[in-house]
């Protein structure tokens, strides 16, 4: 299909006006009535995901209970040219599961079973609605766990983790979702069930497992996941190092890596984040520090002893003003408490906050932090930085008040400027939260038209009608042209809410 035709298909779906009553009739003719929701009060809980600034009631919600029902739902929607947005736990931070008023929201919330635990091969077969943390809890007695641990792990589901290629605190050592799954069952846009990947360590033909992971629900619906399980480390220990200068803290991150240590986690908080979290959870962070590093090492007792000594020596050499080593698991939990409470802590000092997700080469940490500080002055908005320093993955939290006219718009513009700052330093606009609707315009900055066109062509190989999660993740060239024009003329992004779909 020609590029123009692909783009037309996407725009046609976005602008379509399916007959709701007719579609309900067709769905309940083949599905149990109780899995098809269409009354406003039943739709309300699905109007947003974790990016709650964007809200939209779906036309219809389908809550299937079996893979057969998912296949049926997809077949009916496909036959009627109706768009489908798949949703897991709805904790995503980029609006990837934002519903459409002219489309179906397919919730996988009822797929909550752990189907099999294979100790010999160290794997678990789970349904997509299983919570991330529930997997580790279910295999803990076997001395095993599932490594990727997004901060929402208590609530987020594994299907959503696969769709977003979620990360977490322990990625540098243990990898992202894409490194920790071996097989998927998917339902295609026209209702066919397919196996992606295999129980072996590779699969003949193309590596569709890599392609499907992080595809944000645009290529297929995930209905089953086989994850890898790892042996639990004997011990984990944390070094807390304070610095009086952000640049020194950034250099210490690189120095730890260069010393040949791959920490299990390497996190950084800047001064505003330290102060806010300290007031909130009293983790006894040094509130006069410009930045603190939390460096966790794990493994056997001998390994942890060796690496803790190395890390301590490195941060002292790099000019840490204070170094603490957790003495036991209770103290380790206290060290982490501040980091883990960073987001809710922002809720105490600001009515709303906006979380960014750019990733940069580690060497640019200090420059980008300083750049964000300058942008903060320019936009007149406070920002606190917490981030996965080991991965170079930043989470600047822009503080704002949605009740103040125009402040959300200004915040989004500020966020866009942070994305572009990350790109200038050789980074990416999103490390682990996904593009969704939130960063779709910045995709036009990160990728030239030929790359975007290639993405659309790949999408077309899976979904030629463009029905799966349209308007997310990959912008049309038309949209980029509009964004570019507005960008140049005003330096602002006054998109009305509807345009954001």
């Amino acid at each position, binding site marked *: 299909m020609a590029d123009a035709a692909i783009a037309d298909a996407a725009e046609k779906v976005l602008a379509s006006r399916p007959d709701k009553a007719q579609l309900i009739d067709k769905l309940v003719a083949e599905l149990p009535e109780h899995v098809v929701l269409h009354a406003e009060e039943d739709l309300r809980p699905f109007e947003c995901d974790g990016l709650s600034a964007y809200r939209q009631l779906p036309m219809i919600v389908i809550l299937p209970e079996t893979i057969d029902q998912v296949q049926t739902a997809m077949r009916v929607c496909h036959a009627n040219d109706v768009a489908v947005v798949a949703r897991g736990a709805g904790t995503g931070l980029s609006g990837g599961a934002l519903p459409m008023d002219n489309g179906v929201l397919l919730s996988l919330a009822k797929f909550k079973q752990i189907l099999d635990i294979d*100790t*010999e*091969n160290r794997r678990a077969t789970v349904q997509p609605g299983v919570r991330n943390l529930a997997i580790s809890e279910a295999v803990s007695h*076997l001395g095993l766990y599932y490594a990727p641990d997004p901060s929402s792990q208590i609530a987020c589901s594994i299907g959503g983790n696969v769709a977003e290629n979620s990360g977490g605190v322990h*990625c*540098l050592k243990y*990898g*992202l979702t*894409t490194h920790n799954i071996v097989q998927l069952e998917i339902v295609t846009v026209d209702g*066919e069930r*397919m196996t992606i990947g*295999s*129980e*072996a*360590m590779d*699969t*003949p*033909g*193309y*590596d*569709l497992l*890599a*392609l499907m992971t*992080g*595809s944000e629900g645009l*290529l297929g619906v995930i209905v089953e996941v086989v994850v890898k399980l790892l*042996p639990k480390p*004997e011990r984990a220990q944390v070094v807390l190092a304070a610095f009086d200068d952000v640049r020194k803290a950034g250099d210490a991150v690189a*120095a730890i*890596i*260069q010393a040949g240590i*791959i920490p299990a986690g390497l996190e950084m908080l800047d001064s505003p984040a330290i102060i806010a979290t300290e007031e909130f959870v009293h983790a006894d962070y040094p509130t006069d520090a410009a930045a603190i590093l939390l460096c966790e090492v794990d*493994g*056997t007792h001998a*390994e942890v002893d*060796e690496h803790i000594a190395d890390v301590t020596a490195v941060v002292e050499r790099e000019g840490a003003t204070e170094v603490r080593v957790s003495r036991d698991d209770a103290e380790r939990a206290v060290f982490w408490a501040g980091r883990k409470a960073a987001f809710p802590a922002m809720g105490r000092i600001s009515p709303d906050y906006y979380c960014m997700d750019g990733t*940069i*080469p*580690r*060497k640019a940490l200090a420059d980008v932090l300083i750049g964000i500080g300058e942008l903060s002055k320019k936009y007149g908005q406070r920002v606190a930085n917490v981030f*996965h320093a080991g*991965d*170079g*993955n930043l989470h600047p939290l822009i503080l704002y008040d949605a009740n103040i006219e125009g402040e959300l718009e200004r915040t989004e513009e500020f966020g866009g400027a942070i994305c572009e700052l990350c790109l200038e330093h*050789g*980074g*990416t606009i999103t*490390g*682990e*939260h*996904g593009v969704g609707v939130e960063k779709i315009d910045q*995709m036009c900055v*990160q990728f030239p038209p030929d790359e975007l066109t*290639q*993405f659309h*062509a*790949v*999408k*077309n*190989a899976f979904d030629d009608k463009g029905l799966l999660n349209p308007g997310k993740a990959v912008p049309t060239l038309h949209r980029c042209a509009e964004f570019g024009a507005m960008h140049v003329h005003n330096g602002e992004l006054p998109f009305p809410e509807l345009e954001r779909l």
Partner: protein
Amino acid sequence: MTTSADQTEQLTERVRAAFESKSPLKLTGGGTKAFLGEQVEGDTLDVTGHAGVVNYEPGELVMTARAGTPLSELEAVLEAEGQMLAFEPPHYGDNATLGGTIASGVSGPARPFTGAARDFVLGTRIVNGQGQALRFGGEVMKNVAGYDLSRLMAGAYGTLGVLLDISLKVLPLPRTQITRVFEHGPSEALTQISDWQRKPWPITGAYWEDGKTYLRLAGATSPVESACEKLGGETLDDDKPFWRDVREQQRPFFSNADKPLWRLSLPPAAPMLDIDGDCVIDWGGAQRWLASDIDAVALRRIVKDEGGHASLYRGDASPRFHPIGESMLALQQRLKRSMDPAGILNPGRIYPEL
């Protein structure tokens, strides 16, 4: 150091011309992986001239190099900084290039423990089948902007795009490495290896051959030594040549050329298969090499029943890679067309129909 040259323009131009004339291209690097997959008919597109390290900063754990760069040269550059390609790529000859390594997606004995070639790909620059130079992914550890077309290139044998540059995550060399040897039958070895892998030990290789299990531990010094104490077994002195020979198929098992050589990719704990022939076990059970005259269809049925697949490394059966189902093949054909609409990039290399 060999020459460093950027031939992006020449390669792009060659592909564009081939696209316009619809004439197939046969992609070649050092030729060391030419025996994998099917033979390709087409005009030769040699990428070895597009070579050199583009960017390497040890503190970032990232190396970007051009596809034609000799693998041995890259490994030397990394070693000088105390780093390595942790998927331990097989060379299968002196002239192996980075591009061929990633295109074939091959990984060495460390694969189950540290990851496969695809796991270390952070970004690629490619020429698609229309002669457009495109960049996907990047040089950062985490990147979820756009579809992951970079990792898709690993194991695609150049059929979706000509690799130009590849950015890889690299890792520090282990401070200590020790190999322990145990007397085991094959089934006993599989059980034992599975048990060991449930311990948080720094295992980086698990191989069985002719009544002996070879277990490699590598990493920080103290955990390697303490794990060895708990494990027992005999230490294999000077173990590096041993693991190189496993990686390069230079063990005596591989030199017996009388019978076809099959690679069986299986769930690691799959039982020993009842097949007439000789077998060695690598990847802790997940990769088994079989020298056997067994009929291809019969073998593939047995292996598939265990959740695996069988590909031919030496011999005449066709297709050489394990066939995939009809609807999966149709999807992969559509994916191929989306990147190479005229079907000019290494057509038929993976399957005659792809």
